[in-house]
């Protein structure tokens, strides 16, 4: 199939590219499969493939993302949001939210909102959307084409609220989220397909803010997640914090201010990184110094590593396999560069971990592979991914006890139903409280949603029967419906997490973000047309060179003139419209030419058939 201009007129092919995005706590990446190979794109200054997940809100209302924002963190700690992933799907009263330092939170409402300069408070979803928007733009520049679809990775241990928040952030950034893919699964996909191997793998993923462990099996083109587990509040940041705490203790500093904490944590991180290659280093921050040896740091982080060990043993048990049955252990996440982590993993699983794909990139590359598998019809038969739900889903019953409906590590999609009865005569409504987690008591689990089923016919206690049905789709996102069985009264509920945003709020944010961007909407439209121009110019020139015999002289002059016009406006236009018109003109004038190319292609194809048929 000839490429180039033909694509422009092919209504069957979606226009945009599909990418894989690793939306990380510390860094984010975007990758795509190009010519059969996954690769990450430069997304920040100096061609860096890693975009620091830091968003700065400036006084003039502009937003800065990446390394430049990180530099501003020390001076503007409250208006510079780092590690926003830790806030996704969380409520303002979550203990963890308050522990995370320097920010000022707006009061009221079910969702965390950061008070920042230059505008109204922002939610974690909006902050994440800024990161996604930047990644989308950079990928579009690299691909010279639109990016409309994405597979976004989430920690396997993300609960429903955190998944919904991530999906909403994608929507807000103008992306169709093809799939939320568990990070360890993505990593295994990157390894699994590369090597065409079969077998059982453990993926140990210690990122900036989260820890995940998954056990997977690849057999005959089916990649099956056997079990998954982890800790959504444990990561490399905790190593930095452990070092910083020792620094504060050593210097007797009790209550440092926000910018001091930011500076100190940055210094602690760089000390940690130095200790990967050296035995000792000196941390300097706040005008003071503090010597740290690798051995000391290893002692401080030992309790953190032990916590990962507990989760690993449980995941092996859930998968029903022993560590001897594993064919390989895959390391993911920048924190696995710490030598103590590698040693610990090797001991835990009794084998040396694999590390030939860069642990920073492996998740994004796997996501790109999945995006390609889901959108590229030619590749759909290669590998099917069967994932699981990471945490049990249940309902509150009498006495605040959880009745589990979908146990953790159930393969998704999945469905389950449970019948409840009324406990009072004439009771006409029933409260349904959906929770996620492994503990027995409701209060120890995560509250996902509450709703009330009304219109139950008045019956003696225990006579009305209400069936509550859970359905979890392939993204791991839940929907719930309830039905009174004797009368058929039913309610379908789109479960919106207790700490999430409603669809209306998301719509409003989309509108706001468009309004906000009014001043530079001009520029953005122009930029889009420039990207379009680059693509059409590239294609047209290629077709001209390859199929010059299909283009009579006078027609060639017309096409060439149209090309020249687009090329000129590509660089000189200050408004998008003239450029858009020129692109359209080129498109129109080259149509007969393209049709001839198409006819030849079809002819070639038919000839091929005949040869095969003979």
């Amino acid at each position, binding site marked *: 199939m000839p490429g180039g201009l033909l694509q422009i007129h092919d209504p069957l092919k979606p226009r945009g590219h599909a990418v894989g995005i690793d939306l990380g706590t510390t860094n984010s990446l975007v990758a795509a499969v190009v010519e059969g190979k996954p690769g990450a794109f430069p997304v920040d200054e100096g061609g860096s493939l890693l975009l620091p997940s830091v968003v700065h809100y400036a006084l003039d209302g502009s937003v800065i993302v990446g390394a430049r924002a990180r530099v501003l963190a020390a001076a503007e700690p409250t208006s510079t949001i780092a590690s926003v992933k830790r806030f996704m799907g969380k409520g303002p009263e979550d203990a963890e939210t308050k522990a995370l330092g320097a920010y000022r939170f707006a009061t009221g409402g079910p969702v965390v909102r950061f008070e920042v300069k230059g505008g109204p408070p922002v939610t974690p979803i909006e902050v994440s959307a800024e990161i996604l928007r930047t990644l989308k733009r950079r990928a579009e520049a690299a691909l010279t084409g639109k990016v409309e679809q994405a597979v976004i990775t989430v920690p396997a241990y993300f609960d429903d609220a955190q998944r919904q928040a991530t999906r909403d952030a994608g929507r807000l950034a103008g992306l169709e989220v093809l799939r939320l893919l568990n990070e360890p699964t993505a990593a295994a996909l990157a390894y699994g397909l590369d090597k065409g191997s079969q077998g059982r793998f453990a993926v140990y993923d210690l990122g900036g803010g989260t820890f995940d462990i998954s056990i997977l099996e690849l*057999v*005959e*083109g*089916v990649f*099956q997640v056997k079990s998954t587990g982890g800790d959504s509040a444990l990561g490399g940041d905790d190593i930095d914090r452990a070092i910083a705490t020792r620094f504060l203790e050593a210097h007797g500093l009790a209550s440092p201010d926000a910018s001091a904490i930011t500076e100190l944590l940055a210094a602690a991180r760089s000390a940690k990184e130095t200790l990967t290659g050296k035995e000792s280093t000196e941390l300097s921050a706040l005008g003071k110094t503090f010597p740290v040896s690798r051995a000391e740091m290893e002692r401080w982080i030992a309790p953190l590593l*032990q*916590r990962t060990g*507990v989760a690993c043993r*449980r995941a092996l048990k859930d998968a029903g396999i022993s560590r001897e049955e594993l064919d390989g252990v895959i390391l993911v996440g920048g924190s696995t560069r710490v030598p103590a982590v590698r040693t610990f993993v090797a001991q835990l699983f009794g084998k040396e971990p694999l590390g030939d794909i860069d642990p920073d990139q492996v998740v994004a590359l796997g996501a790109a592979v999945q995006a390609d*598998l*889901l959108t590229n019809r030619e590749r*759909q038969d290669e590998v*099917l*991914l*069967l994932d699981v739900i990471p945490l049990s889903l249940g309902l509150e019953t009498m006495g605040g006890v959880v009745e589990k409906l979908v146990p953790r590590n*159930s*393969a*998704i*999609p*999945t*469905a389950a139903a449970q*019948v409840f009865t009324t406990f009072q005569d004439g009771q006409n409504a029933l409260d349904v409280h959906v929770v996620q987690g492994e503990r*027995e008591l409701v209060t120890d689990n995560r509250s996902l949603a509450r709703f009330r089923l009304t219109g139950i016919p008045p019956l003696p206690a225990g006579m009305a029967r209400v069936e509550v049905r859970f*359905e979890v*789709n*392939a993204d791991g996102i839940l929907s719930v419906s309830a039905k009174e069985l004797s009368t058929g009264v039913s309610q379908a509920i789109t479960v919106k997490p207790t700490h999430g945003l409603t669809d209306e709020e998301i719509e409003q944010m989309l509108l706001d973000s468009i309004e906000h961007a009014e001043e530079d909407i001009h520029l953005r439209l122009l930029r889009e047309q420039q990207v379009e121009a680059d693509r059409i110019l590239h294609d047209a020139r290629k077709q001209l060179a390859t199929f010059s015999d299909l283009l009579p002289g006078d027609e060639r002059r017309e096409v060439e003139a149209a090309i020249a016009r687009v090329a000129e406006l590509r660089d000189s236009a200050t408004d998008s419209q003239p450029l858009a018109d020129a692109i359209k003109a080129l498109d129109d004038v080259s149509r007969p030419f393209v049709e001839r190319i198409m006819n030849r292609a079809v002819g070639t194809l038919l000839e091929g058939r005949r040869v095969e048929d003979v």
Partner: protein
Amino acid sequence: MHCWNCQSEVGAAEVCPSCGKVQPVAAGTTLFDVLGLPRGVDVDRAELERAYRERSLRIHPDRTGKDDPRERRLSLERTALLNEAYKTLRAPEPRAFYLLKLHGLDLQKDEARAVTVPPNVLEEVLDLREQLDSARAAGDDEQVSALSDRVRVLSAAALSTARSALHRLERDPRDAAARDEAAQALARLRYHHRFLEAAEGGDEDET
């Protein structure tokens, strides 16, 4: 049965042989049918894994129904059912509970109350729970794991009793004695499970 899309005869097939669309689940389909396995107390594990993979490749929402909302819905439902079948039939215990359910007694539901567990079994269970609580209070981890080991032996015995009773019941569905025996053994097993959950749950909290 006729295909909802092209009207050709589909029988019990999950995918229409003529147009390839995913079909709804027919009434009376058992989880054994879903995986295409012969119904029984014993299941060939390798065959089950193979059947699960093959069917996933045919009906998973990633593979089918992308452009057709109705087929997408059916694909989701069928895959959810396939996953349930896999989960239920893979291990001997849930399989035993499911077989008893096919014989009209669902121990996960209210019907569990209809099973009278002999008083001595209840006593034994209560006694074990008390021992667990006091071992836990004394911080005696060795005793906790010794108790767990004992319950594991008891539950293996209960499962084996249930399985042999179910074998008889599968041969003669009217064998009421076999049905009672299976029900009692599985009710015992449920108590053992709760015990082990309590014992293991405690371990995790402490670490």
